Structure formats: structure tokens, C-alpha cells
């Protein structure tokens, strides 16, 4: 089947999202433009207007409305999609919590971008990370091909885990650069992605008096609901992510490793950890360093939520763990902080770099990895 209709083409990251969404056949799409997300919704509205995608495209007045529309649609049983970036995601924030705690299986693309002030449209990861405590599943792609594959997978994952799922791609680095991609045949996607079950989390239908979200008679019930949603469901989602990646790999020949991807780390003494598009640069640096006899590998975080505890725990066997963050918090980077919290033996160096869209390429990785191994860096190091 694969050989029959797989189409090789070249797409930008944003168009890869749009094609993936088209193949996932959502019922309802709502989104509000923001750079660098805009070309996703432009392309999708074009698909809908041309009759190539039979979905309801709702033009909304804000991101808050976009998230609210897809929330309502998902609760009514529809497959629903939205996309945003940076300030748009912040503007949706209240509704993103409501979506997660309702177990509404919405899929959202987040084209990652710096949060102002000052205004800055370039890449950074702080925006998508605001979702980390909400209950959303959060994935980050490395390449345009993975953007496409991950977006298709996200619908299956969201609807199986019954949790909203965000797929991140680096603003401009992936969203606007063109790469060759393979489009899986529609029949294959149809097989991989069965129709959405409308009765999960509930069946909202005229004449059926179910209520959702009202005050609870028992705060313990409410507490249990919360724990089941943000803790237990996240844990269960780990297996789902791996299984979905396996199955997708069987169908397309592209398997990514589930929650994380290990790269040349098996025999290494030290390991780099990162997520997103710059992992490709980091891999290049790892190659060069290995050629020079330095014992180093890499772990790429594909899913920050569910958090890959088991894989992260394996980092403790390395001497030095160098975690790269393209985001900044008062404690350093998010990834660095979370990974440090899970390790007891390995020495962790957290490098915060590339924030505000500052260029950070393979050469920068090469140099900073060396310095981290030299011991010339503190626990948290800011590289600008």
C-alpha cells in the first residue's frame, strides 16, 4: 500500500502541518493568525474553501475564542484542531486548562516563538512550555518530516489518551524552511487514525441531560478527577505514545523512538539533552566531537509531557549530562531543571542558549559541549 501512493514532495514546516491535518480529517478547525503560525491556517482555509478538506473552518476574533471553539467542538464529539504561537498561546491560557481538565482531545500546533517584550518573532521554547502543568501532552519535532508525522500521530495519541495534545515546531527554523518530505497515502492515514469516538469524554447531545463542569458535591471527587487527569492519564499516555510511534513506524517505515530518541549514546560517557529543531545541529556537533575521540551521545526529548522519567533516569549512568534549553525561567531552563530533579549521580550542566532567536548552530554546540566537558561552566550557563 505504501509503495502505491506515497508522495514525495517538498514542504515548509507549516505546510507539513496543514497537509497532516488535512489527512487527519478534522470536523472543526478554528485559529487566529500570529507570526510564524499564520501560513498553517491560511493553507487550511484554502483546503476547506476549495473543498479538498470537508471541515468547518471557524474564523475567530482571538486565540481565546479559537481554543474555546475547538473545546466546544471536541466536547460535542468532533475532531478539532487549532494552531498558535507565543502571545496567542498565552492569550488562550485559561481555556487550555479547561480543555485538559475536561479531557477534550484537541490537537494544537504551537509554532514556537519568543514572548515579548520587546516584540520578537523569532524562535524560543518558553511559549509551548506554559502548557507543561496543564495536563496537555507536549511534543517537539526535529524536522519537517517529523512535523508531518507527529501531527498525524497527535490525533491518534490525543484521542487514545483522551488528553489534548500540542505539537511544537521551531518558529522559522522549521515553520518556514522547506525540506523534502514523504506524504503517507490517505488510505494509510485512514487506517492508522480511526474515526473519533464521540462518547469520550462524554456524549453531549440534545435530549440527554448530562452536565459537565458544574460544582461538585464532593471535593474529594473533584480532587480524584484532577489526579486522574493530570497525573495518572499522563502516565498512561507514555505507553500510548510509544505504541503509536511503533505502529506508525510499521506503516510508514519512520519510527522516531517514542518519548525520546537516543543518538549514539550507547557507548558514550557523556550525553547531550535537547529538544526541537536544533537537535539536528547538536547531532552534527556530537558527530564531530566523536570523530575527535570525545565520548559523547545525545538524547532528544520528543515528548516533554508525558515526561519520559524512565528514559531520563538512564541519564544517571553518564558522567556528564549537558542539557540545552531554548527557554529561560528564574531557575535556569525548564528541561535542565526537570532533568536535574530526576538525577542523583550524573553531573548536570544546564546551558540556556538560543533564546530570543539568537542563532545557535552546530559550531556553537561543538564549542559549548567542549566547555561543559572541560568543567569551565557552572551548573547553569547562559550563552548569548
Amino acid at each position, binding site marked *: 500500500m505504501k509503495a502505491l501512493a506515497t508522495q514525495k514532495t517538498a514542504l515548509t514546516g507549516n505546510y507539513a502541518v496543514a497537509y497532516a491535518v488535512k489527512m487527519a480529517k478534522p470536523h472543526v478547525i478554528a485559529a487566529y493568525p500570529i507570526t510564524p503560525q499564520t501560513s498553517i491556517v491560511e493553507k487550511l482555509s484554502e483546503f476547506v474553501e476549495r473543498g479538498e478538506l470537508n471541515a468547518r473552518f471557524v474564523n475567530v476574533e482571538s486565540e481565546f475564542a479559537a481554543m474555546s471553539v475547538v473545546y466546544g467542538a471536541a466536547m*460535542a464529539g468532533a475532531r478539532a484542531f487549532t494552531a498558535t504561537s507565543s502571545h496567542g498561546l498565552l492569550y488562550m491560557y485559561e481555556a487550555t486548562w479547561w480543555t485538559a481538565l475536561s479531557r477534550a482531545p484537541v490537537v494544537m500546533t504551537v509554532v514556537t516563538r519568543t514572548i515579548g517584550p520587546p516584540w520578537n518573532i523569532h524562535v524560543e521554547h518558553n511559549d509551548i512550555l506554559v502548557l507543561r502543568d496543564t495536563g496537555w501532552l507536549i511534543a517537539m519535532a526535529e524536522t519537517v518530516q517529523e512535523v508531518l508525522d507527529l501531527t498525524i500521530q497527535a490525533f491518534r495519541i490525543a484521542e487514545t489518551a483522551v488528553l489534548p495534545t500540542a505539537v511544537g515546531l521551531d518558529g522559522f527554523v522549521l515553520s518556514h524552511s522547506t525540506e523534502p518530505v514523504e506524504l503517507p497515502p490517505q488510505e494509510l492515514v485512514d487506517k492508522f487514525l480511526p474515526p473519533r469516538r464521540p462518547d469520550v469524554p462524554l456524549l453531549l447531545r440534545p435530549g440527554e441531560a448530562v452536565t459537565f463542569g458544574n460544582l461538585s458535591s464532593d471535593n474529594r471527587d473533584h480532587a480524584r478527577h484532577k489526579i486522574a487527569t493530570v497525573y495518572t492519564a499522563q502516565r498512561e499516555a507514555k505507553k500510548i505514545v510509544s505504541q503509536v510511534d511503533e505502529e506508525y513506524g510499521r506503516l510508514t517505515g519512520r519510527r522516531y523512538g517514542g518519548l525520546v530518541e537516543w543518538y549514539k549514546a550507547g557507548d558514550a560517557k557523556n550525553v547531550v539533552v535537547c529538544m526541537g529543531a536544533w537537535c539536528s545541529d547538536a547531532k552534527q556537533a556530537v558527530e564531530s566531537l566523536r570523530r575527535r575521540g570525545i565520548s559523547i551521545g545525545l538524547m532528544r526529548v520528543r515528548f516533554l509531557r508525558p515526561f519520559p522519567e524512565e528514559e531520563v533516569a538512564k541519564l544517571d549512568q553518564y558522567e556528564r549530562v549537558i542539557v540545552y534549553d531554548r527557554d529561560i525561567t528564574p531557575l535556569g531552563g525548564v528541561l535542565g531543571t526537570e532533568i536535574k530533579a530526576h538525577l542523583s549521580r550524573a553531573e548536570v550542566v544546564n546551558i540556556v542558549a538560543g533564546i530570543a532567536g539568537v542563532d545557535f548552530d552546530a559550531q556553537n554546540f561543538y564549542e559549548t559541549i567542549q566547555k561543559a566537558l572541560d568543567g569551565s561552566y557552572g551548573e547553569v550557563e547562559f550563552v548569548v
Partner: protein
Amino acid sequence: MSFRIDQLPKKKYVVPGNAACAGCGMMIGLKILGMALGEEAVLTIPASCASVVQGLSPKSGVAMPILNVPFASAAAVATGIAEAYRSLGIKGHAVVWAGDGGTSDIGFATLSGAAERNSNIIYIMYDNEAYMNTGIQRSSSTPLAAWTTTTPMGKRERKKDVALLMAMHGVPYVATASIAYPHDFYRKLKRAAEVQGFKFIHLHTPCPPGWRFDPAKTVEVARLAVETGVWILWEYDHGHFRLNPPSTVYADRAKRRPLVEYLKLQGRFAHVTEEQVKALEEDVEARWRSILALAKAFPQS
């Protein structure tokens, strides 16, 4: 459309066990909503008294499907439900049941957005003229001079006229209604259910604790609002604008009952001076002038 009250559906959609205050005007409105649309309506309710009066989950004092949603989001969530039903081929009405705060203030952008894109929803703003759920704070729909906990000396600004603003969006259907006139509200709900696109009904719902009156007098207060001309019943249907009975006769100022009769029943106006009463009367008159001008400017039927 004509009908008799004794022929209305007998099934009760507001059932014992709900958590409303005694004499809650909004609950009368919900009952009529149940009669008119009960088997067809899927309610979206933003944070408000309406999210409380349902009673405590897993039970419910309102026998209709209800999705409770964040304060500002109702019109957009209902849009999502309506679009999902359209896509899935399900028949039913996505109905918003929202307070004046959720409608005229925090939710105004989603409301206006849904109106502008003509989303196929029925939006009902029940107007108790303040934020009651959080303990009687002013909203932009609180009338001039009314006491609330955040306008302890009386509100300085006039009441925002949300229904008129919605009509000016040029949507298919907008109406005002009052819980003292259930026939009129029922008919307007039925009409809204026939219309494709965006429908807005602004329902006046007195609130005994918030307005400081005897809970036995809810309907009397609501009726006095209409009889004094404070609340005007009208309807905007596909570009046709008309006054509705019983308000029609009050176009004539002389036929209206004195405003003080309405004010004196309510503790929230207890402090008003003669000057403020004058200002309120002028405000009522100004509203009538615009409504009558609109009735003239737009075709009647």
C-alpha cells in the same frame, strides 16, 4: 404564533434540588427555556449564578445537557458545539445561558465575534444587572444610580444596552424579554429556534438579594420594570424592528407608571436623591427615543 399556557409541555426541566435563592428571576427564565427548547437545547453556561443554581454534580437541578465553561468563552464554545453538530449531522440548538457580566463585559469579544460570523447559536443573556455570583458587584449592565458593593454610592454610568449593540451587528434575530411575560419570552425562544444563524435574547431577571427586595415580589418587580418603561420589549427580526406588547402602549410616556414605583421596591435604589430620580427618568426617556427612532427607521414587519 399563539398558544395557551395550559398547553405548554408538562415535562419539567428545572427540577427540585437546584440551588437558586428563593425568588430567583433567572430560574423562572430557565423554566421557560426548558418548556420552549428542552429536548433540543444543549446549554453552555459560563461562570455565573447559573453555574451554581444547577446544584451539585453528579446531580443536576436542570434536566438539560450542560457544558460549564470559563467566564469569557461561552459564545465561542457554543459556536464549537454548533459547528460540531453541523459537521456530524446532529440536530439540536447550541444555547448559551449567560449572565450580564459574562455577556456585556468579559465575554463581549467572544459574543461580538460569534455575532459577526453569524454562528448558529441562541445566546440568552439573563440580566440580573450585576455580578451576583461573586456577591453583587457592578457590571456594565448595572443601571445608573444602583447600589452594588463596588458602587457603594450608586453607579455613575448608565446601563450598557447590549441588545441594541447586538442588533447593530446586523444578526438575524435579537429580542428583549422579561420573566414577567412568559408568553412573550416563550414565543421569542421558539422564533429563535426557527432562525438559522446568530440569535440573541436579552432577558430581564430580577434578583431579590442583589436588588434588595422581598423574594415574593420577583414577578411584580419585573412587571413594574416594563410598566414604568425601564425595560422595553422589542424584537429585531431580519432587519425588521418592532416593539412588542405589552411595551407597545408605553411608547406613550403618559401611559407609563411613575418610575418611583419601580425604584421604591428595591433596596439598591433606597439612597437615590430626587436629582438622581430625574437623571434616571431622563435615561429611560432617552432609551425610548432611540428605540422609537429605530422602530421608525427599520421596517416594522
